[in-house]
């Protein structure tokens, strides 16, 4: 008779369904399919899809690439720690190291130009949270993630670490300039 008693009809899978239920199931199913194909469609027509290009890497290998870029394209340094500000040419491979507790180096990009941004962590998991654009990507040690980015607005962007990484997690902020 009720939900806490055994159903009075033995064959519960033969119970008729009410019109309200039937209608709702059809509507809900259509909506579920729309949402599913929206994700697929955005890969075909949308401009914001997260790349899946990934390589296994080690801190040494990745640092060497980052250092080579810094040696070649540094335009100035900033802050007391003399963090290099690097302005690599449009279309190039650019590197950002996440480690306890900073992002290194500072990048200077051009608006509407495309870059291949390589991300990895030297130690724990970190989070690449680009503000105020609000793009959030997980940074996992041992994995080099190559994300193709096209900044669409000039300005000063911050990279906030938004994966908990220890006691100074809150001081882990990097920077990207877009000209």
């Amino acid at each position, binding site marked *: 008779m009720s939900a*806490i008693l*055994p159903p009075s009809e033995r064959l519960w899978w033969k119970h008729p369904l009410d019109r309200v239920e039937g209608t709702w199931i059809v509507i809900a199913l259509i909506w579920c399919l729309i949402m599913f194909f*929206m994700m697929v469609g955005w890969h075909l027509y949308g401009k914001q899809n997260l790349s899946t290009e990934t390589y296994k890497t080690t801190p040494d290998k990745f640092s060497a690439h980052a250092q080579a870029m810094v040696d070649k394209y540094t335009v100035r340094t900033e802050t007391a720690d003399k963090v290099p500000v690097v302005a690599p040419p449009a279309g190039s491979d650019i590197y950002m190291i996440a480690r306890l507790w900073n992002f290194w180096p500072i990048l200077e990009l051009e608006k509407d130009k495309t870059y291949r941004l390589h991300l990895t962590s030297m130690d724990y998991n970190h989070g690449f949270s680009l503000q105020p654009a609000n793009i959030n990507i997980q940074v996992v040690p*041992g994995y080099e993630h190559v994300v193709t980015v096209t900044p669409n607005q000039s300005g000063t962007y*911050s990279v906030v670490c938004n994966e908990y990484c220890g006691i100074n997690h*809150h001081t882990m902020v990097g920077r990207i300039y877009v000209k």
Partner: protein
Amino acid sequence: MSSTTTYRTCPRSGLQFEANAEKLMLANAVAAVVFLLIGGILAVGVVLTRWPAIHWLEADTFYQVLTAHGIDMLIFWIIFFEIAVLYFCSSTLLRCRLATPKIAWLAFALMVIGAITNNVAVYQGGSSVMMTSYVPMMAAPSFYLGLILFAVGALIGCFVFLGTLVVAKKEKTYQGSVPLVTFGAITACIIAVFTIASGAIILIPTFLLSVGVIDKVDPLVYRTIWWAFGHSSQQINVAAHISIWYAVAAIAFGAKPMSERVSRGAFLLYILFLQLASAHHLLADPGLSTGWKVVNTSYFMYFAVLASMIHGLTIPGAMEVAQRAKGFNKGLFEWLRKAPWGNPVFSGVFISIIGFGFLGGISGVMMGTEQLNMIIHNTIYVPGHFHATVVVGTTLSFMALTYFLIPVLFKREMIAPGLARIQPYLFGLSMYFFCLVMMGAGTLGVSRRHWDMAFEGAALAYQWPGAAYLMMGLVGIAGVAAIAGGAIYLYVTVGSLLWGKKLEAGAASTTFTPIPRSAPTVVAQSYGSAGFAAPGTFMLAMVFLVAFVLYYFINWKYLSQVWGLS
């Protein structure tokens, strides 16, 4: 056979309790409430630190307290309570003895020891790794050991539940199929077995890593398997609290399911598709293919979401049908206006259903969309979402059920019924607001698990917009109100248990009374208009759908404005 046990029939509810099962339910429920108390005290520290104007705790204490808050609430409070619910849904609803009570006590002991071990590890410091404990960040070995012991205990509890179903079948305490609520509990249990297996696969190597037996656990493999455990355990909660919603609809209204076929089919969808859940935590991760993400995050074309949308309709629908049968038949909503709003068992469940659907459901599907996840991942939107599911949905349902159990299982008269009457409103509605403002702050980018939004000591500090500070201030205020609501629940529950007037237990007998066979009835009702049995509920469902569609596409619009990514 085991004639050492006795059965009593509760004079207030007609439910039959077996002595062993009853003691175990009590023990598990009490342990659950103890961890809710601890987790609630920790919530004070968490929320007063995230409230920028107060910023109470030091960074190390904050991360420690947050780790313990997450684990005590999400794992210990909820799973202890769920074990009690499993025993209730088997032994009590099927009117049979509990299989292997000694082993059930062993399970309970393991869970208690595990929970204490884990808590001690966290309070000793050095294990502030958050409940997710992503490698290579390591906690003390006892942190993992505690979780493993707890999980083994919970797994044994699941098998006691399954064994009890076998006992009921063999001793013929019921005829035909198990009740819908038991069916839902079986769903929860099957998912739990899968979940705990995943937890073992990842926590055991991590424990071995922490004691130096093995030297590496891959961070990405860890995340993938950890979330097969971490998310599936949320689906246990969903299956469990939805079962409770059906139970409360039956208890408060005498409502019966609109269609057993639809409701049970929806539970089956959960079993089939929930294991895919790991994916939506990994959408922003490197190394996983797009196809894998799209198929898995949608639980294979959103079939599990479909199931939840079905339950979301059929439960209020069943209430509406029952109310209309009683004559509350005017217009679309008389059935709802005349509902027992002063009864916390009902109001708690109803506030839970609406909040779970509108806040938890919509936000969850939105941020679980592959591309949209990029504007949400690891922001405070995420705790905003899951406080709507696991607090408004699961916790509030458990609270509502407790109000029913105080006289029935605890055999006590509830103290302070006036306070209990307002509790679901205070707790539920302030939680609604809490979740909304967290989601607001998250939409602006504010990070979760973050001690200081002013970035004290950072050379390149970022300045959050004023609106973000405002939102986080409101998070603080709403959080404090919710904690007050939680405190009332604890006061009423513990107080009733300690000082409530003892109620008559009902005569004990050494044999069970089987559930009588109920006469077949007409299933579909035809009250209401347009041949629709529940037009008011259908209206609510349409409002839900419109909100869902609008919010979903607003976020796509937002996504389309950020940097190009490919």
